[in-house]
């Protein structure tokens, strides 16, 4: 039997060195006794053998965590796993393997204990006369995790001196971290912040909701004795029913006198008189609830451009980007439109650009919103705004892009293909030139897109000519 002693701190590194040496001679796991210091007649570790020893990164990470478990068998299990790993590289990745499963559970328990230590250590301020403030804590973890859990505090509290004492030893930080053997529990002075903390804990609790199982599963009772706030829990729970009942008995209250005055001052009734200019119309449209699209869309996307423009361009409805930014024609289709307008010599600042429907219609799909074409009812409801916009702008010519705009303006929903490039009459009597919607061009395959883009550009050029005439 070979006996291996491991030091109080730096255990994992020591185990790793010895295990590598033993494995290089393929010493069988049942020939080694780990960490039992009092064993008489134990043989020393043999010198390094000739076999190469390999360990995967995943295994080393797992072993490093399992090393902090309180189970005395952990070193033997890890060594058995290391030996097995030499012939069977895959077992450590197979969650169905019993040894992998056992080590995995041990690691999980250690990780949880470390997490709880990061959560439940409570520092008390200690007197000091140096430039740095001094703090101390007492904590009782389930596993020997002091070494594994302390670097977190060193990163977090680098500008103060602190110590965390545990039954396993003490971690001390004064700019660098070191570990000392176990000492009696330190006397920590009272700290006024702990009293404030208890005030916070007692008041952030809602007595109308009690879920003590959830509390206990996340904050196990074994940690309670060193937490300043947990002493309040019994009283908080005992008092909760009375507080809820008192709330019910009190019922609804009468508002203080000043409330109505404040409300009257800030709550102006919106002006719903028929708007006489585009700005007022935009304000009213921002509160529009004529159809259901307003509930999901971000905001009303009103037209923009020259309020006295001779040309009005009408698209279908805002898309994803337009909806987010609150401005029309800023998405991919809008960018294409602007490029073609530039070619055709149409200045966006001298045009009124808007949409037949002012709210974005979509279906949510995970993290994306898929555009939907507005239906006839939505188009008809929104025509109220489009008509108003047309009365206020009074364009000489309107350009309808796509079937929805053509339908909104002419009331005719026949297919667009044979009508494209033609001038028809709007419901309010003006001329309207029909063309493709730029988003169609973006959806077509390259050859058909080329043709459609050509036609689109020709239509815009025609519109520019009609303006010049």
């Amino acid at each position: 039997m070979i006996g291996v002693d491991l030091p109080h701190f730096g255990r994992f590194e020591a185990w790793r060195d010895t295990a590598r040496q033993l494995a290089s001679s393929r010493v069988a796991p049942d020939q080694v006794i780990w960490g039992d210091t009092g064993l008489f007649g134990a043989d020393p570790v043999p010198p390094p053998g000739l076999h190469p020893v390999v360990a995967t990164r995943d295994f080393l990470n797992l072993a490093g965590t399992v090393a902090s478990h309180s189970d005395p068998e952990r070193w033997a299990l890890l060594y058995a796993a290391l030996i097995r790993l030499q012939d069977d590289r895959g077992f450590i990745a197979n969650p169905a393997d019993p040894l992998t499963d056992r080590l995995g559970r041990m690691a999980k328990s250690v990780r949880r204990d470390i997490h709880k230590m990061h959560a439940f250590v409570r520092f008390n301020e200690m007197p000091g006369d140096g430039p740095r403030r001094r703090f101390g804590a007492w904590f009782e973890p389930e596993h020997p995790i002091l070494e594994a859990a302390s670097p977190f505090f060193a990163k977090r509290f680098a500008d103060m001196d602190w110590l965390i004492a545990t039954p396993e030893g003490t971690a001390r930080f004064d700019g660098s971290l070191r570990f000392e053997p176990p000492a009696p529990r330190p006397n920590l002075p009272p700290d006024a912040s702990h009293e404030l903390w208890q005030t916070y804990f007692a008041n952030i609790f809602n007595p109308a909701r009690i879920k003590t199982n959830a509390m206990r599963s996340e904050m196990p009772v074994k940690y309670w004795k060193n937490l300043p706030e947990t002493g309040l829990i019994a009283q908080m729970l005992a008092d909760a029913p009375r507080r809820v009942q008192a709330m019910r008995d009190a019922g609804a209250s009468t508002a203080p006198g000043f409330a109505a005055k404040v409300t009257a001052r800030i709550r102006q009734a919106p002006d719903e008189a028929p708007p006489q200019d585009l700005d007022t119309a935009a304000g009213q449209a921002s509160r529009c609830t004529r159809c259901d699209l307003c509930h999901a869309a971000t905001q009303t996307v009103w037209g923009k451009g020259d309020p006295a423009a001779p040309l009005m361009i009408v698209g279908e409805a805002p898309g994803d980007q337009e909806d987010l930014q609150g401005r029309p024609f800023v998405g991919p289709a809008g960018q294409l439109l602007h490029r073609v307008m530039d070619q055709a010599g149409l200045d966006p600042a001298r045009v009124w650009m808007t949409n037949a429907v002012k709210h974005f219609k979509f279906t949510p799909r995970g993290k994306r919103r898929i555009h939907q074409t507005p239906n006839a009812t939505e188009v008809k409801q929104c025509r109220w705004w489009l008509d108003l916009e047309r009365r206020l702008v009074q364009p000489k010519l309107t350009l309808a892009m796509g079937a929805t705009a053509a339908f909104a303006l002419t009331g005719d929903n026949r297919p667009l293909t044979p009508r494209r490039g033609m001038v028809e009459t709007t419901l309010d009597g003006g001329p309207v030139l029909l063309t493709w919607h730029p988003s169609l061009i973006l959806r077509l395959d390259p050859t058909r897109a080329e043709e459609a883009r050509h036609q689109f550009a020709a239509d815009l050029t025609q519109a520019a000519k009609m303006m010049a005439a």
Partner: protein
Amino acid sequence: MAQRTLQQKLAILSDAAKYDASCASSGTTRRDSRDGGLGSSGGMGICHAYTPDGRCISLLKILMTNFCIYDCAYCINRVSSNVERARFTPEEVVTLTLEFYRRNMIEGLFLSSGIIRSPDETMSQMVRIARTLRVEHGFKGYIHLKTIPDASPALVAEAGLYADRLSVNIELPQDASIRELAPEKRPETIRAAMADVRLSREAAKEKTHTGKRPPRFAPAGQSTQMIVGADAATDRDILATSANLYSGYDLKRVYYSAFSPIPDASAALPLIKPPLMREHRLYQADWLMRFYGFDAEEIGAAHPSGFLDLAIDPKLAWALSNRAQFPVDVATATKEMLLRVPGFGTKTVTRILAARRNGPVRYGDLLRMGAIMSKARAFVTLPDWHPGALTDSDRLRARFAPKAEQLQLL
């Protein structure tokens, strides 16, 4: 009015903040104090304590003030409430945050506020607190600011530089309820504020033409909260709203807060027991949407009433009403389908996929891998297990639902 002590203010202003459910501190950039300052953050958030209402304390969640000029019926701090009022100075908030942080009680600050004077005035004070923490004290911990929907974009832009997370509460699942119960708020302004945060976050991720990266903007993203049970919206409505919010504004979380009766209540709302189980089921459903590939509509449609089944979890409810898709063969099923098996979580599915490469997966293996076989057994086939007629059994739901409770006799 006599001057209040810090302790009295803390009591009032943490009491006023307790109805906000969101308190997470995860998902931000990694920072620590080795190069100066105080604190660290990044990775998994830490809950430093739990209150008997089952909710964790990760952040110091307080209101800057509970004076408010708005009159939202569901809110204890509305102008028409008779609640005791208090107001922290910015320095007091900074001190409380730093001192609690140094004693390892919190991960940082969650600051919200009643609206005083104007949205801009309130927002600028909140920004000042965050700036003092970050710039003067080199604070590296977590900061979550509840933004005021009507505040100017410049203030929100500055807030995003200091805060890890920004949020604005949608408050109620349907626009009509917001207009009725929170007459000073407007659903479209709330959504526009969320859209602004999303656009600012995206802009901060793009390099400029000189190749310089702009400063990070709210690296832990944005979240929102919805109150459940204060209006008549069904769970189907709520999930539809959540799906819209997730897809539209790249939200990290939608928090559901079961409506609690509040002291000094408004007559507009009932003094009901908070629907905690409904809240729980909504969180489960939300999880299914974010991590399991479910659509809001298919979860919401599992029950004709539009409400989630309170007796069983929403995934099980979905499976029971879609039995034609089961049993699935664990050896060959796609990842998407494995994720739909009740009793299999995302971790279990990852383990199954890993184990499948090493040979057949049996019943005992699944138990070891963390599958809840009491649920899953009716929906899977394995080399050593076949559910037989169990999948289509009429009494399958009864096996999972808790026993009917005897009503109390009067």
